[in-house]
């Protein structure tokens, strides 16, 4: 890993160099919310001052998984098989740790098992991941409870910290090509430079903020606690009381990976689509004959907790949750999962 400094005055020149070679996506603020935006050359003239500030905000509304594990993806056709196409090469610039760690969940499910998803892997391979520090956590953030940090630790090709307006990059070998687009704009840093010291101080401050927002740690044996409570309907009912089954929590989740394969008839055949699904959906577990092991909503509610904080941890050694807070920001019933997890 190497550290490179891009002075504030060179940021836009570098971005225009990137645009010549890749599709570039950055978070931008729109009506107070941060959203992923495909950068166009014109943006550098019309919106030069909003690119850097958005890098310091918390994660965008859209989970980063949607770039690789797309909400809807055509994955088959019949009788003529689908010919996969090569996706465009792109850079996602500004990923927070709460979106980066969840990609490991999708890698495990779609990319590493006996059966691999070629569409996911193609998108993954063609995407350069640039993380960004998260210096100003908000009240909805709780990554610290899940062992994450407001800066990337592993999994990115490069990581960005903005120090006094200058862009400081930690670059892995896999991200070196980003620097190579315009090496003359960067200076290589060695040792404890003032920028590095300042970055590390800011990271410590962000960690301290998170520890104030979420002071009480979760039960260290969350899987055991969930398994013990799984059939305690009164417990789940208490927390599910205001749920209106809109599935917003699941659609916004950066780790949820359930999907539905569905076919659409076309002339003499069909197209097959892989679409995000929601385990809260009533027919989710129903079989062709009509039997449904989770016909009651309360079982589906408990099942979500069992899946993310018990089963996934047991099977893959990590929680299928990164503490991004999207689930309760989206919740019409104001169900804050920190309260549910905190009582386990």
């Amino acid at each position: 890993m190497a550290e490179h400094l891009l002075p504030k005055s060179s940021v836009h020149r570098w971005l225009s160099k990137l645009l010549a070679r890749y599709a570039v996506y950055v978070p931008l603020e729109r009506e107070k919310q941060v959203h992923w935006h495909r950068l166009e050359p014109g943006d550098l003239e019309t919106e030069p001052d909003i690119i850097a500030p958005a890098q310091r905000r918390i994660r965008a509304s859209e989970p980063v998984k949607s770039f690789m594990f797309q909400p809807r993806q055509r994955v088959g056709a019949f009788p003529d098989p689908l010919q996969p196409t090569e996706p465009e090469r792109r850079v996602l610039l500004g990923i927070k740790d709460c979106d980066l760690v969840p990609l490991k969940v999708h890698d495990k499910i779609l990319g590493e098992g006996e059966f691999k998803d070629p569409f996911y892997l193609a998108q993954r391979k063609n995407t350069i991941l640039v993380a960004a520090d998260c210096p100003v956590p908000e009240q909805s953030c709780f990554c610290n409870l899940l062992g994450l940090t407001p800066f990337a630790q592993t999994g990115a090709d490069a990581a960005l910290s903005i120090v006094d307006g200058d862009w400081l990059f930690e670059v892995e070998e896999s991200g070196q090509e980003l620097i190579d687009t315009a090496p003359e704009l960067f200076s290589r840093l060695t040792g404890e430079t003032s920028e590095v010291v300042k970055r590390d101080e800011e990271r410590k401050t962000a960690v301290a903020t998170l520890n104030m927002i979420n002071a009480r740690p979760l039960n260290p044996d969350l899987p055991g606690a969930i398994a013990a409570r799984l059939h305690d309907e009164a417990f789940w009912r208490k927390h599910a009381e205001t749920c209106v089954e809109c599935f917003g929590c699941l659609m916004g989740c950066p780790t949820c990976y359930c999907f539905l394969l569905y076919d659409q008839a076309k002339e003499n055949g069909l197209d097959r689509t892989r679409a995000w699904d929601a385990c809260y959906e009533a027919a989710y577990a129903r079989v062709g004959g009509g039997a449904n092991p989770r016909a009651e909503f309360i079982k589906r509610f408990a099942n979500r907790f069992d899946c993310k904080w018990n089963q996934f941890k047991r099977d893959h050694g990590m929680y299928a949750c990164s503490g991004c807070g999207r689930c309760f920001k989206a919740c019409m019933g104001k169900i804050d999962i920190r309260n549910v997890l905190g009582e386990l």
Partner: protein
Amino acid sequence: MNNPYQPIPAIILKTMDETPNIRTFVLKPEREIPFLAGQFVELTVPGHGEAPFTPSSSHFMRDTFEMTIMKVGRATGALFDLKPGDVVGARGPFGTPYPLERFAGKDIYIVGGGVGLAPLRALFLALIHESDKYGRFFLRYGARTPNDIVYRHLLPEWQKIPKVDIDLSVDVSDEKWMKKVGVVTCLMDDIPCDEKKSIAVVCGPPIMMKFVNQRLLDAGFQPENIYLSMETNMSCGVGQCRHCRLGPYLTCKDGPVLTWAQIKDIENPFV
């Protein structure tokens, strides 16, 4: 790279009506689907959907395979409208086969209900193909009425095979029925094998499996020797989509056949 969601064409060579709502389809896939008994195949009825079925033919014969299917929903409804010469889609094989190495030297006690005899037939044919490897074979099968018995023409042939012992029951008899009347557990009052050492294999409607499993446990079968075909919503077939989750298992990957030892702690697994 191989696309696990992409079906290959399989032509319907022949259909045989087993009962008024159960039919056997003989399929010839474009490429061999190298299944082993207990594994399943996702069958696509173009334009109507996809559903999982376990082949009912011997895994020693794979250029064509058979599936015995009951008409219950949208996909199977459309499948029954197809004729020989029509083409369906197939993906697989998926799931974990019966661990036949564990069955070696043991008596095998097979209990089937209704269309549940279909996947058991694939197992039965695999067992008798290498009959010397195993002990005796007991098949206990129950159907609703004599008209609902599948493989009616095959059962008398199977009975002639050495070491094979078959008994049947129906819930509701007609005037010609000479065997037992009652649910399939009525054939289990006297289990003619050593329960402590034998293997039991069960497939049928969930309620039937629940009671047969209890009966086997009461008789002394070991939980790890009772093999149950679990019916959950297996959609992707490849352990990803999670629709089929049953407690800590994904039925499409760890099953669909699971032992009672594996699932005994799951609340009400027979839904």
